C-alpha cells in the first residue's frame, strides 16, 4: 500500500471527478470553477476533462445559480454547487434554505433534491467580518439537509464522494485554511459514511468534540495538556447532520467530562446542541457541566491578532478543559 500524500483541495477534486466518471448526471457549477480552475484551484483541470457542459462558469449571482441547480436536482440531475465562500450563500438563502431542504417534504415525496453545495466556511485569515461566516450555526438548524465538515484530506475525498451520492441536499463545509493541508488519501473509490464520528486521539480524562478546522485546535490543545498530565480524547464529529451522538456518549461515559469546540457563535449552535444532547444522555456520567468553546460573540475581527483570539483556539480550549476538570 503506497502512502499517497496529496493536498486537501486535490482530495476534493478526486471525489468530484471520481463521481462524475461514475455518474453522468453529476456536474459542477459556480463562479470561476471552469476557465479559472476555481478561485481556490479545487476544480483545476476539470473543464479540460469534462467540458463546459459539466463544468459551468456562472455569473456572480448565487441566488440565480443555486436556484437553477436546485431545479436541476429536482428533475433528476445531481449538481455540485461551489460557493466561493459560504459567506456568499446568504444572498441565496431562499433557494438553499426554503427550497432545497424542504422540497421532498413539501412535494409529498414527488421531488427530492440531491444537490451538494460546497465552499469555504469560517475564518479564512483576515477576510473580515462579512467574508468569514461560519454557517453551521444558522444552517444546521434547518431540517431536511445534511451537513458535512471534513477536517482531514482523506475525509475530504471520502465525505464529498458520499455527499454526491446522497439523495438529500448536502451542505459541505470546507475551510480555506485546510485546503493546502497534505495527508494520505486512498486512491480509487473512497467513501466515508455520514453520521460516523471518529476518535482522532484516544484519552481518558475528558472528551473534546469538534467539527472541521477546530478539530486541529483540539489536537493542539490535547498535545499541550498531555504535558500537564491531562489525557484528552478528541472526537472529530465529521457530520453535524446527522450527528453521531453515540460515539460522543460512549466517550463521555468513559471520561466523565466533555468540552465541545465549535467555530460558530455559541448561541443556538451545533456546540449548544451537542452539549444539550450530552447532558441528556450522560447526566449521571458527568463530573461537571459540558463546557463549550466557540468563536467569541462578536463579528469576526479583521486584525490578525484579534482574529486568532476570536477563534476557539488551543489556549482557550485548554482553559476550558482545566476548568472542566476542576484544575483551573
Amino acid at each position, binding site marked *: 500500500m503506497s502512502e499517497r500524500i496529496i493536498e486537501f483541495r486535490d482530495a476534493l477534486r478526486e471525489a468530484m471527478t471520481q463521481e462524475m466518471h461514475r455518474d453522468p448526471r453529476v456536474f459542477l457549477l459556480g463562479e470561476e470553477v471552469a476557465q479559472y480552475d476555481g478561485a481556490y484551484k479545487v476544480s483545476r483541470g476539470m473543464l479540460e476533462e469534462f467540458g463546459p457542459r459539466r463544468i459551468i462558469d456562472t455569473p456572480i449571482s448565487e441566488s440565480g445559480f443555486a436556484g437553477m441547480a436546485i431545479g436541476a436536482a429536482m428533475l433528476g440531475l445531481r449538481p455540485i454547487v461551489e460557493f466561493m465562500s459560504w459567506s456568499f450563500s446568504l444572498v441565496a438563502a431562499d433557494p438553499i434554505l426554503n427550497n432545497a431542504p424542504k422540497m421532498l417534504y413539501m412535494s409529498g415525496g414527488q421531488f427530492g433534491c440531491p444537490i451538494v453545495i460546497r465552499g469555504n466556511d469560517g475564518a479564512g485569515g483576515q477576510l473580515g467580518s462579512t467574508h468569514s461566516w461560519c454557517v453551521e450555526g444558522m444552517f444546521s438548524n434547518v431540517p431536511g439537509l445534511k451537513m458535512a465538515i471534513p477536517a482531514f484530506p482523506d475525509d475530504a475525498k471520502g465525505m464529498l464522494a458520499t455527499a454526491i451520492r446522497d439523495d438529500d441536499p448536502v451542505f459541505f463545509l470546507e475551510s480555506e485554511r485546510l485546503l493546502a493541508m497534505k495527508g494520505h488519501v486512498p486512491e480509487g473509490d473512497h467513501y466515508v459514511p455520514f453520521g460516523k464520528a471518529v476518535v482522532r486521539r484516544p484519552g481518558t480524562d475528558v472528551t473534546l468534540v469538534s467539527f472541521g478546522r477546530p478539530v486541529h485546535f483540539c489536537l493542539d490543545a490535547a498535545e499541550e495538556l498531555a504535558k500537564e498530565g491531562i489525557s484528552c480524547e478528541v472526537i472529530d464529529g465529521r457530520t453535524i447532520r446527522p450527528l453521531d451522538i453515540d460515539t460522543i456518549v460512549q466517550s463521555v461515559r468513559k471520561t*466523565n467530562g466533555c468540552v465541545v469546540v465549535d467555530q460558530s457563535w455559541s448561541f443556538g449552535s451545533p456546540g449548544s446542541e451537542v452539549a444539550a444532547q450530552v447532558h441528556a444522555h450522560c*447526566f*449521571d*456520567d*458527568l*463530573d*461537571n457541566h459540558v463546557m463549550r468553546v466557540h468563536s467569541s460573540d462578536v463579528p469576526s475581527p479583521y486584525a490578525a491578532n484579534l482574529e486568532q483570539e476570536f477563534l476557539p483556539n488551543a489556549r482557550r480550549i485548554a482553559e476550558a478543559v482545566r476548568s472542566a476538570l*476542576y484544575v483551573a
Partner: protein
Amino acid sequence: MSITLTMPRLSDTMEQGTIIRWNIKEGQEVLSGAIVADIETDKATMEMQAYDDGIVAKILVGEGTQVPVGTPIAMIAEEGEDPQSIASSDGEGQKSTAATTPAPGPASIETPIPPVATSDTTAQVAPETTSVGRRKISPVARRLAEEHAIDVSALTGSGPGGRIVKRDVLAAVETASANVAGAAGDVLPVQIPTVATAPAQTLMSTTTPMVQHVPALESTEVPVSGMRQTIARRLVESKSTIPHYQVKMRFSMDTLMELRKSLNEKLAAEGVKLSVNDFIVRACALSMAEHPMFNASWAGDRILIHGRVNVGVAISLPEERGGGLVVASIRDANLKSLRMISAESKHLATKARDKGLATEEMSDSTFTISNLGMFGVDDFTAIINPPNSAILACGAALEQPVVRDHQLAVGWEMSATLSLDHRVIDGAMAARYLGTLKGMIEEPMRLLA
C-alpha cells in the same frame, strides 16, 4: 423575577464567607435595609443587608456553612410572586428539604401533589444528605459514591462551592480500601461496600480487640473556619519569617493591686472597673515615648516607626462561636486614660464575643498584649502579631513568697515575657523597655497622670 442573594464580598481579600446567623426565616417578609444575616469573613463578622423588599422563598445555605463569594445563599420572592413555587423550582431533588409551610391564600386550595413513589435508589439516599441545604455533588460523583457505598456527607468537596467531584469520591474509595487493607481500628471516613465487608471482617477479627478501660475518644474532622485559616496563615508567616526571641521580667504588683482595689471601690458607682490588663495597656503605651522601636515595623530595607500608639489586645472567642482569637486595636492608647482604655477594652471584648469585630476595630495595631492571667497562667510566650515588632505575654498577678527589703514576705508578682523581632529590637533594648515598664507598673501612680 425572584431575587437571589449571593455571598457578598465584604472585604478586599474575602474569598469565602460563613453564615454565622440567619436573621430571616423562609416565608418571612424582608424589607430593603434589613440585616438578613451575619457573615464571617476571613477578618471579621459583618452584617449583610437586604437591598430589596420581598418574601424569603428559600434559604440555600445553612448557618455555619462556608461558601465562596458569589454563591447563592437565599432566594427572595418579589411582590406578586409565589415564594413556594420559587422554592420548589430551585433545582432538582430539593423537595424533601423544602419544608415550607403552605402559605394561606390561593396556593392552599390547590390539590397538593402526592409524593411520587419510586424505587430509584437515589431517592432513598437523598434525604439524609440535607441538613444544611442540598449537598452539591456532580452526577458522576454521586453515582460513584453509590456504587462504592461512600457516605458523601463525610466528604469535603474540592469543586467550586464545595461541590463534591469525581476525584473526591475516588480519593475516599482509595482511603477506604487502604483502611481495609491496613485493618486499622480507626474510624473510617467512609463505609465499606457490602460486597467488600467479608474480607474486611476477616481482617478485623484477626486483630486484638482494644480493651475499653476508658471512654473512647472519637476521631473526627472539623472544618476550618475562615478565622482559623487566617490565624494559621498569619502565625506560620510570623513564626517562620521573624527571628523571635524572648526576654522575661517579674514585676512586683503590690502597689498596683492596692491602687486598683482602691480605685475600683471609689469608682464603682460610676461603673468603672479597671482590670490589671488596663494598667498594662497604658504602661506599655506610655513606654513607647522612650522606646519608639517597640512601636515599629520591619519593612525590609528600613524600619517604620509609627507615630501613633495602637495597642492590640488579644481576645479569645467562645467555643460555641467556633473559638479562635482576634486582636482588638485600642487606638492612641498613649493618649487615653485608664478608664477610657478600660471602657474600650470591655466594649471590644464583648462585641468580639457576641457578634464579631469590624475590620477597622482590628486593624493598625502597633504593639500587642496577650494576657492569660485570668486563666491562672504563671507565664508563657507569645508569637508576634505582624507587622508588630513585639508582643507582651502577661501571666497572672499572683501572691507569692517574695523578698522585700531583705525579708521574706508575701507579695503580688506578675511575670511578663516580651517576644521580639530581632531585626528591629536587640536584647539590651528589650531589657531597657522592660525596665521602663517595670517602673510604671511598680509605681502605678505615674499611669494616672
